[in-house]
């Protein structure tokens, strides 16, 4: 069993509404039994019971407190008040604590019952400290309740004034760019020399007709064409060769990858 499991259960009950109306006054003894909803969980109830012992929380009798709590739960059940589960869990835990405290020391588990009791005491002290602190905080002179800010401050205004910057070069360059941007634009499309597929097809098939030997594809290209036209002619001639091969008019061979591509007429 871990330390955590042995520690006080944290209850699962959600807190009450967070902005209360005028606070409901608790107080009278019998009200204690009717105000179950008023407790912020079992630890809160324990703290209130502890305070009824009217001694310093450091000197509180844990056994006495356990008895008070168990008695309270018993009476609440007699009154048929509906108890949230966490109150019952706490009751069971306290009953266990009580029996442990009454056992001879050597028969106790680790951590010892004294340690658990001290832990409970420390937690009650801490909750009590925060409860007191909260009360003192709320009792201070609060802004908007006890002290007030000025009702109608004039307000401080800072008016921004711009000092614009621009220099001669920016100005002249901007004008140049406007002019450049809006100048009529002429698109020049350069004439490119190309060999169409049709002409390549005609050229390749007529050259194939001349001989039965293998001819390298490059030899089909126009010999004196410039570089751009040669590129176009090569591409078109290649497609033309494929087309002729497909039609069964020529056969193609390439011995190795990127090697010369050769072509010859199919003899029927």
């Amino acid at each position, binding site marked *: 069993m871990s330390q955590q499991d042995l520690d*006080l259960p*944290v*209850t*699962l*009950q*959600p*807190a*009450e*509404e*967070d*902005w*209360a*109306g*005028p*606070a409901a006054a608790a107080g009278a003894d019998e009200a204690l039994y009717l105000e179950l909803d008023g407790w*912020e*969980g*079992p*630890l*809160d109830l324990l703290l209130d019971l502890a305070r009824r012992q009217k001694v*310093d929380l*450091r000197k509180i009798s844990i056994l006495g407190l356990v008895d008070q709590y168990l008695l309270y739960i018993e009476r609440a059940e007699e009154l048929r008040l509906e108890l949230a589960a966490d109150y019952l869990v706490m009751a069971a835990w306290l009953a266990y604590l009580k029996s442990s405290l009454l056992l001879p020391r050597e028969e106790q588990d680790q951590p010892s019952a004294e*340690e658990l009791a*001290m*832990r409970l005491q*420390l*937690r009650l*002290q*801490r*909750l009590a*400290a*925060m*409860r*007191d*602190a*909260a*009360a*003192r*905080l*709320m*009792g*201070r*002179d*609060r*802004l*908007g*309740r*006890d*002290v*007030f*800010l*000025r009702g109608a*401050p*004039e*307000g*401080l205004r*800072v008016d921004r004034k711009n000092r614009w910057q621009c220099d001669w070069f920016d100005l002249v360059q901007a004008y140049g760019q406007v002019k450049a941007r809006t100048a009529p634009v002429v698109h020049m499309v350069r004439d490119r020399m190309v060999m169409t597929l049709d002409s390549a097809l005609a050229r390749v098939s007529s050259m194939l007709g001349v001989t039965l030997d293998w001819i390298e594809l490059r030899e089909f290209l126009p010999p004196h064409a410039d570089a751009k036209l040669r590129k176009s002619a090569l591409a078109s001639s290649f497609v033309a060769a494929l087309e002729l091969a497909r039609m069964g008019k020529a056969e193609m061979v390439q011995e190795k990858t990127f090697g010369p591509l050769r072509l010859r007429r199919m003899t029927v």
Partner: protein
Amino acid sequence: MSERPDDLVRAVEATLFAAEMPMTAEAISTHLGGADVKAALRELAAHYEERGIAVVERAGRWHFQTAADLAHLLRREREETRRLSRAATETLAIVAYHEPVSRAEIEAIRGVQTAKGTLDVLLEAGWVRVAGRREVPGRPVIYATTPEFLAHFGLSSRKDLPGIDELKAAGLLDPVDDALEAALTRSEEAAAEEKETRQADENWSDGLASEDESA
């Protein structure tokens, strides 16, 4: 009637009086073209000490407000400010005294789960802010108070939180585990010392009790 204060004091006085929000000394200084306003602020605070309005510093920001002892005269026509629930009040106190603090730590002190709405109310009131995450498994969000919290409750800084020094000295702001360990070590120590300790405890609790009455 009274002596004319120097020009800087008058300027700081006018600026702070006209401001719609509390101002830091730096902001006042900037507004006044960089003058050093610290001394002027101190002089103003002293001048207004006995008057119907006061110059106060909260979380490093200065503002004018009405004197606290006149609350009964000014409160009457004001709408009663909404009351915080006990859960919210306690949660606020825990955040203020322990900050920064995670929700699990708040719950450990209160012994109940804290409804989501409770922290939301405090966040919405502008008294609590998310102050990052704790670098432990799960990286829980941690909460702290805001300058508005200090201003609302009339605190110059967290050091002014009522009783914080005593709580600190008594170890009541330390986690239960630490306190338990300390207590066990102590109880194992020489039984002779015990008497003295008890003496000290009584002094401490006397101190706390008298503060309670004054609150």
